[in-house]
């Protein structure tokens, strides 16, 4: 996927050199990339239903691409968080903090899951968040 994104980036960068568009100023502004992205609240369970679980946490506004992904690494063994769930969000350019929320679906009932969180720019580059290992139990 990263190779694909690199190819797309080169193709688009070439295109952008050949043309300009007066409306680009309207696009989601790319806010300055934060020197360090830190969790200020959570991660925690926002919702735990039979078919849907939502994990939520807050960081300082990471900046960079306006679309980010919240990432949850999870599993039933705290030493093997082999599964990953990602959900997109859009940064609000006027907010100093950002709430990430990630959907986890099709989890086993009455099961304890362990997880850590991270976030990344829409091109896949990690924000480098350091997260504790947390857990929750499905209904």
């Amino acid at each position, binding site marked *: 996927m990263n190779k694909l994104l690199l190819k*797309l980036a080169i*193709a688009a960068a070439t295109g*952008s050199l050949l043309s300009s568009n007066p409306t680009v100023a*309207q*696009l989601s502004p790319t806010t300055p990339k934060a020197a360090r992205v830190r969790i200020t609240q959570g991660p925690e369970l926002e919702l735990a239903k039979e078919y849907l679980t939502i994990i939520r946490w807050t960081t300082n506004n990471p900046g960079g691409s306006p679309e980010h992904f919240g990432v949850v690494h999870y599993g039933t063994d705290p030493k093997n968080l082999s599964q990953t769930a990602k*959900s*997109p969000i*859009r*940064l609000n350019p006027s907010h100093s903090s950002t709430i990430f929320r990630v959907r986890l679906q099709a989890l086993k009932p009455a099961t304890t899951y362990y997880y850590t969180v991270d976030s990344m720019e829409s091109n896949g580059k990690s924000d480098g968040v350091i997260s504790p290992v947390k857990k929750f139990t499905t209904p």
Partner: protein
Amino acid sequence: MRERRLTALVILCAVVAATLLISTEFLSAQNGQGKEGKGGDRDTPPPFYNPYPPGILPADLLQEIERVRGEVRFIENEALAEWQALTPPTLTGQPPTLEGTGYQAVQTLGKLMNFDEHMSPFENRACGFCHMPYTGFSGPIPSVNLTMIAYPGSFQFRAGKRTAQRYTYSPRYPVLQLYPDQALLFGGNFWDGRSTGYLLQSADAEQAQHPPVDTQEHALPDTACIAFRLQTAAYRPLFETVWGVGSLDIKFPHNTEEICETPGGAAVFGTNTMPIQLKPEDRAKANSVYDHWGQSISFFEDGPQVSPFTSKVDANINGLYTYTPDELAGAILFAGKGNCNSCHIDGQRTLLTPGQTDTGTYAVNARPLFTCFGYSNLGLPLNPRDAFFYQTTPDFFGFTANPLGFGYRDLGLGTFLRSGFGSAPNPNSAWIPLAPRMDGRQQVSTVRNVAMTPPQCPTTEAPGPYFQKEFFHNGYIKSLKQLVHFYNTRDKFPFPVTSGHCPAGTTEKVDCWPMPEVPDNIDMTVGNLGLTDQEENQLVIIMQGLNDGFDPANPSVSTYPDINTFTGKCMTGGTAATQGNEVLIPTPTPLPACASAVCGVPPLPAPKPIP
């Protein structure tokens, strides 16, 4: 003997006259898809296409179709008068330019085309039929907005699959393009972005080229039919003034009318999308005319009659109007707790530093468009009222719009990138691998004019008097209150059910949100905003402040052009929170799995298959 002959002749005349009257009545009143006053080879009108179960088509549909057609013809006549009053521009200079009134000439031409009913096989559908000024150029029939979602096309009652998007500010969307640092697509027109603008360098101009040949809209079978019909248009001289004398001099074969009065998709055409046999030079001319069709309409949409930047918010930006307390609260919520401007960019906010407070004010003379031109999957449920799901059998012409029935899923931009079923060919194969990340994403509309209604029905919100609109791509949401409540509580009241099956003790759209139609790529910026009921209402109020036509000197009268053309009736009663819930119908159970023609096209949806 002579007397008997005379009696027989009188009877014969009476029978003929009665037959003519009855057939005319059938054509114009009952069927509505005859070609009144025009020849053609069709002796009898084709029967209605009605594969719908009871209740999908609104009871007043034929009456409302005729009502809107009358309004369309009124505006067309108004445009003809505007053309007659226009001082002709002077073609001069190098490169030659229409000096003086060139702008007005192109925009008037676009308006004339936009409201011209002749641009359809049965000469009963103009672009404006689905896009009238009093709704911000979106769907003008309240009962259609409430029931069948998609609008009936020239061959009644074929219908599309999505709501009619507003024209306002659509020309401001750039050509669909990839932003490499974001690995995201921005721009384009249509909910699924299929009008890229790659050829004309205008997504909006290319957008205007789709409906005339969309099988469920105007349904012309060949793009050259537009040039053919323009040859006999009353405003042909204006077209030639703008685009050149001789630009419509195309030699069409004798059977062209027969072809153009047969709706696209008809079995007789097979897979031929250019059934009119033209010499290469004439085909090139017809293609050029079709480009000018799109460009002229786009310039009309970009002009002051459609996109004038005259809302209350604009007046506030320019220092001509002070918000009420509720409007100010709404403006602050829009960028703050509501998080609306994450996607609906107001263009002027900056990152607040600790201790700073948002005052809700903007930089003077800004013209924010309240969109990021992006695409998002908001997680809307499948709407079983969408007429598209029921068009599973062939119509009179042998065309079947949706052989997949309820196996269809609207993957939006993802399907377009795959050149998939119900979309259009993707002209950039380098983007195909992005499809799984784009599944379910639909275009982020501008908020401008989302609340526009005719003056006699001054709101979209029950109890009114209100004008029933429909929101988002599938019309599931019926009021702005519901729209904000959806953003606010989608993840607070989620249920693993489809629409029409919320558990007893809950109310759909109030404290029960059925599961998303497309579970991948759901935007989590919204869904649990923690807004109070009052804050939801304040957001509705500031959205209403984005209606064009606000005059600070006379705030009770809209200045928006042609907003007074609505001749229908308002609705009253009920509450905005449950508006339209009386027409909810159960989604079929079990819901058929997503058809392989949609979800089985590589690259496959990921990380999980779409059910």
